[in-house]
């Protein structure tokens, strides 16, 4: 068998190296994407965990509210210190600040109790006297910066730095440089340390902290102390080991990562398809060889084994190439993915190094090889079963004859049934796994149906083409339907690309449209939106003090303002949800378009919301936790459980897991939070938005780093954020397109090679080169059109499934579906142009050789 591999396979595979590369490339692409997503997922998680652990330092326990993204009263620290096993309880407050003069850079501001920190020694100061620094830090304008931050900027002790904090832009003095170790190495060194009271003031978080790090006495039983502290602290506050805290995020980020895995599975399906196509066309070309071998006494099973062995070798090459390419891709794409994740989760994901989960690689290897063998099986079996005589007579139909239409339709129905069942289970169980399985199968099903559809289209095209293009059209039509399998397979390949492209563009289009429905004409409509320039990496701007609202409200031309505050990381029944607080205007029933309230009455809801006794919940939250209007929802506020009546169920995209919308006053009262994220401004009749914008900038621009946007700019800003969240999808899409286009070219070219002889004959009886070319271009253009139309149809259904179901259960966003029609038309034109170009290239190849040479080919 190995000799056959060397004598038969090796020279043939080498001679048609393009096709062999395509097989290897198809598998390598699928494998590379799986590896890349796996590496990216692992790296993002590992980076996140490392940050949490670094910030924890030597503390054995941490006390947080929820998972630590919402502040609470610093009084809890005193309570903890009374425990005999506790050596130190060190409070910490956190926020994001901007660097004035460098809008691209944001820094994490840590407010710490420096005296208490002495016990912990989490920071190492490299310059200056420790005691002197401590004394100086009492001054509220003192800061410490990391060496990683200071060195490239030429900063040193004594220099001044102007920061844009939530309470305004202010100069600070560098009192010391922190060695880039431990905590100071987190966030890539973009970290500023202040004394706790100063930081609380700068962040508008008086008396509030985000976390308490607890150091225990040597030998103290951690479990027992953990339980003891937990029982003494108010409900809502949680005592966790740092590792436990980071483990909680595994679940929070899990669904997004699972969606990425689903995406990489689609790439594998595309890879399998490419291998299937390529081996099928190769089979035609190699039929003569295989027939000759049969004449010399080769057995069917021998040839079958040979072809499968070949597939194995190519598969191994593909996987071996795919794994490093995947790691390389991960290097390129990790930044993109962590950026997308920060848009979705409103958390920063610093990734310093790639984490390759070695234990996953053998599985990926097996999956890749399995996929190659699976994809090659059909053509290997067909080649081995061919009648040598049929081939010697150059009857290629025997080779290209695929499964019968009936079998394909039955197969399609089976695939659709299984995928529907899987999707139904997805909905029932909210299962990501079933969703991935179902949508991958649906994708595969769309390929299977293409061939019968092409067969069915015969009646139409064999009428139209001759009428439009005369003899060339007739030859084209005849050739199209002589081997409906090849035509169908090519059209399916095109449809596949279109489906992927349309699904991803419909997803982002739907998200854009859904979000912009808030801002244009919806309840978040306004004349101007004022916010901080900085964000925490996502779309949500860092907080600003609510007093700014009052100041803006007093400006000339301003009729009224709305205040909006969002907590993106509130925990609710084990899920990380968002809580949004609005001022009274937000609840005005007139602002909600008809049907916005999926449940509940806007009028009565407004009364309860304004009174602070009710809350609206997002569709996703209602469905996830089976909540209905009239139920009560209980939130863990820092001062204890806060119970509210549910007054309405509305669409909302603040968080993937769902959100609660309530009166901002409740956030002030129960969360002790006085900041806002956005101030929406309404103008008096006749006031010009530009003038008011200038007035706001003049009044506040000196003290605060503010962003003042017009309605169109707000929508554009959010559209940009959506694009950021989907940039990876686009990258994957591009990859599939490139590989599949190569496959389509191969199919078109090889169909011409098969027909060289008859095209030569056609020329011999008088067709000129132009006519031959025209007919080939008409043929491939028709295939392109078929694929394009099929692609739009399949793309419509597939994207509806993704937007309406997968996206909902994978990621948690409840979207209304909008099909990306403009993209669809653009892709259609693109596909037609591409197919015709490929056809033209093939036609040139077909007419280049002399007629007699063409005739002699057998």
């Amino acid at each position: 068998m190995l000799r056959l591999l060397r004598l038969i396979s090796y020279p043939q595979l080498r001679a048609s190296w393009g096709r062999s590369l395509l097989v290897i490339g198809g598998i390598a692409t699928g494998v590379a994407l799986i590896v890349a997503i796996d590496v990216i997922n692992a790296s993002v998680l590992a980076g996140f965990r490392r940050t949490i652990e670094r910030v924890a330092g030597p503390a054995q326990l941490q006390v947080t509210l929820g998972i630590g993204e919402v502040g609470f009263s610093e009084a809890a620290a005193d309570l903890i210190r009374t425990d005999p096993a506790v050596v130190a309880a060190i409070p910490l407050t956190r926020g994001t600040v901007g660097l004035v003069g460098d809008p691209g850079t944001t820094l994490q501001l840590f407010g710490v109790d420096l005296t208490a920190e002495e016990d912990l020694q989490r920071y190492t100061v490299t310059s200056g006297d420790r005691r002197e620094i401590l004394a100086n830090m009492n001054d509220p304008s003192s800061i410490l910066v990391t060496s990683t931050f200071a060195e490239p900027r030429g900063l040193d002790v004594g220099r001044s730095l102007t920061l844009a904090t939530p309470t305004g832009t202010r100069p600070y003095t560098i009192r010391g440089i922190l060695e880039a170790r431990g905590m100071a190495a987190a966030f890539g060194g973009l970290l500023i340390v202040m004394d706790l009271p100063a930081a609380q003031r700068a962040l508008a978080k008086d008396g509030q902290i985000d976390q308490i790090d607890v150091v225990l006495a040597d030998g103290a039983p951690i479990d027992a102390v953990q339980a003891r502290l937990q029982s003494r602290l108010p409900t809502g506050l949680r005592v966790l080991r740092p590792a436990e805290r980071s483990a909680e995020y595994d679940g929070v980020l899990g669904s997004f990562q699972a969606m990425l895995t689903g995406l990489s599975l689609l790439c594998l399906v595309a890879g399998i398809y490419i291998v299937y196509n390529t081996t099928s066309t190769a089979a035609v070309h190699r039929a003569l060889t295989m027939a000759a071998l049969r004449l010399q006494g080769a057995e069917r099973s021998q040839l079958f084994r040979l072809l499968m062995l070949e597939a194995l070798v190519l598969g191994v090459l593909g996987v071996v190439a795919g794994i490093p390419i995947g790691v390389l891709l991960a290097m390129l794409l990790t930044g993109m993915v962590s950026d997308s994740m920060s848009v979705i989760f409103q958390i920063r994901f610093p990734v310093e190094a790639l984490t390759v989960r070695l234990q996953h690689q053998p599985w990926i290897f097996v999956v890749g090889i399995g996929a190659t063998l699976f994809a090659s099986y059909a053509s290997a079996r067909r080649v081995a079963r061919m009648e040598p005589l049929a081939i010697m007579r150059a009857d290629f139909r025997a080779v290209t004859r695929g499964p019968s239409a009936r079998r394909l339709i039955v197969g399609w129905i089976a695939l659709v049934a299984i995928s529907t069942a899987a999707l139904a289970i997805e909905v029932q169980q909210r299962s990501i796994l079933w969703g991935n399985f179902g949508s991958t199968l649906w994708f595969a099903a769309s390929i299977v149906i293409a061939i019968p559809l092409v067969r069915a289209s015969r009646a139409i095209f064999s009428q139209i083409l001759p009428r439009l293009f005369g003899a060339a059209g007739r030859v084209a039509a005849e050739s199209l339907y002589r081997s409906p399998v090849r035509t169908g397979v090519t059209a399916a390949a095109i449809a596949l690309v279109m489906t992927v492209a349309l699904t991803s563009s419909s997803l982002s289009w739907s998200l854009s449209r859904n979000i912009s429905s808030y801002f244009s004409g919806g309840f978040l409509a306004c004349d101007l939106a004022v916010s901080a320039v900085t964000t925490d990496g996502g779309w949500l701007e860092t907080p600003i003090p609510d007093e700014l609202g009052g100041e803006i409200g007093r400006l000339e031309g301003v009729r009224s303002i709305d205040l909006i505050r969002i907590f993106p990381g509130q925990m609710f029944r084990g899920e990380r949800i968002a809580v949004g607080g609005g001022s009274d205007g937000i609840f005005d029933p007139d602002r909600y378009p008809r049907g916005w309230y999926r449940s509940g009455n806007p009028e009565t809801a407004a009364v309860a919301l304004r009174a602070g006794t009710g809350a609206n919940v997002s569709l996703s939250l209602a469905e996830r936790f089976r909540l209905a209007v009239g139920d009560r929802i209980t939130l863990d506020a820092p001062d204890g459980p806060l119970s509210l009546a549910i007054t309405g169920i509305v669409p909302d995209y603040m968080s993937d897991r769902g959100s609660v919308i309530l009166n901002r006053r409740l956030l002030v009262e129960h969360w002790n939070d006085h900041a806002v994220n956005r101030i929406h401004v309404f103008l008096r009749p006749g006031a010009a938005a530009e003038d008011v914008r200038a007035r706001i900038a003049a009044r506040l621009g000196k003290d605060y780093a503010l962003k003042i946007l017009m309605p169109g700019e707000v929508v554009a800003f959010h559209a940009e954020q959506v694009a950021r969240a989907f940039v990876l999808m686009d990258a994957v899409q591009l990859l599939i397109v490139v590989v599949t286009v190569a496959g389509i070219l191969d199919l078109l070219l090889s169909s011409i090679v098969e027909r060289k002889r008859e095209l030569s004959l056609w020329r011999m009886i008088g067709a000129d080169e132009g006519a031959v070319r025209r007919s080939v271009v008409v043929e491939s253009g028709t295939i392109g059109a078929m694929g394009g139309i099929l692609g739009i149809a399949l793309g419509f259904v597939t994207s509806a499934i993704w937007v309406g179901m997968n996206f909902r259960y994978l990621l948690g966003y409840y979207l209304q579906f909008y099909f990306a029609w403009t993209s669809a038309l653009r892709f259609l034109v693109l596909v037609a142009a591409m197919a015709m170009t490929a056809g033209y290239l093939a036609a040139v190849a077909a007419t280049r050789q002399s007629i007699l040479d063409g005739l002699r080919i057998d």
Partner: protein
Amino acid sequence: MIEYRQVTKVFGSGDTAVKAVDDLSFTIERGDFWSLMGPSGAGKSTVLHLIAGLTSPTSGAVLVEGRDVARMSGKEAAELRRRRVGYVLQAFNLLPFLTAEENVGMPLVLDGVPQREIDRRVPAALELVKMTHRAKHHPTTLSGGEQQRVAIARALVIDPAIVLADEPTGNLDRANGRAVMDLLVDLNERLSVTILLVTHDPVFAAMAKRVLHLVDGSLEQTTASDGDGDALTTSGRRR
């Protein structure tokens, strides 16, 4: 050795049915050398195909070495071609990407013969057809006659009991054709290989011990020959 028992082979059905072979019976003994003549479409190639088990008769039986070819499994038929029957086609005999010697060794490779033995048998076969000097050449660099000789070497390398040759001289000039024919005659005389040759050339046909004339799938006449091109006896078609 080869026995045709009332063999009929029909292609297609109804109006378009073609009787490629029509109630044909004959027996070729071991060591015989027959040639088969007839107009195009007479069914000559089909007669050979049936012997090699490439297709099966519509009725009747084809026996090779006493065994009904149609009853053989695909595996057995393949083994027959690999070990007992050497087949030489009119053209496209050789795999273009292999050298002459690799082409010749291919049936042995398929049969799992150890490489050492292949290395011994291939040069011998090439020597028989006087192609040793071209062993490393690819088919495209060989003349038509040389290609045909390599193809014959490949048929011989298996030590066949039977050689089926379908117009092996069809593409060759007279001198080259003559060389191929001499080779076949020599094989038949020295090694007692049973040979069935299809040819359009009466001179070459007459070099066989017996000439069959096939018309519309039936035997028109058979001519006994002395092997030197002179007819000895002629028997008319029996109805």
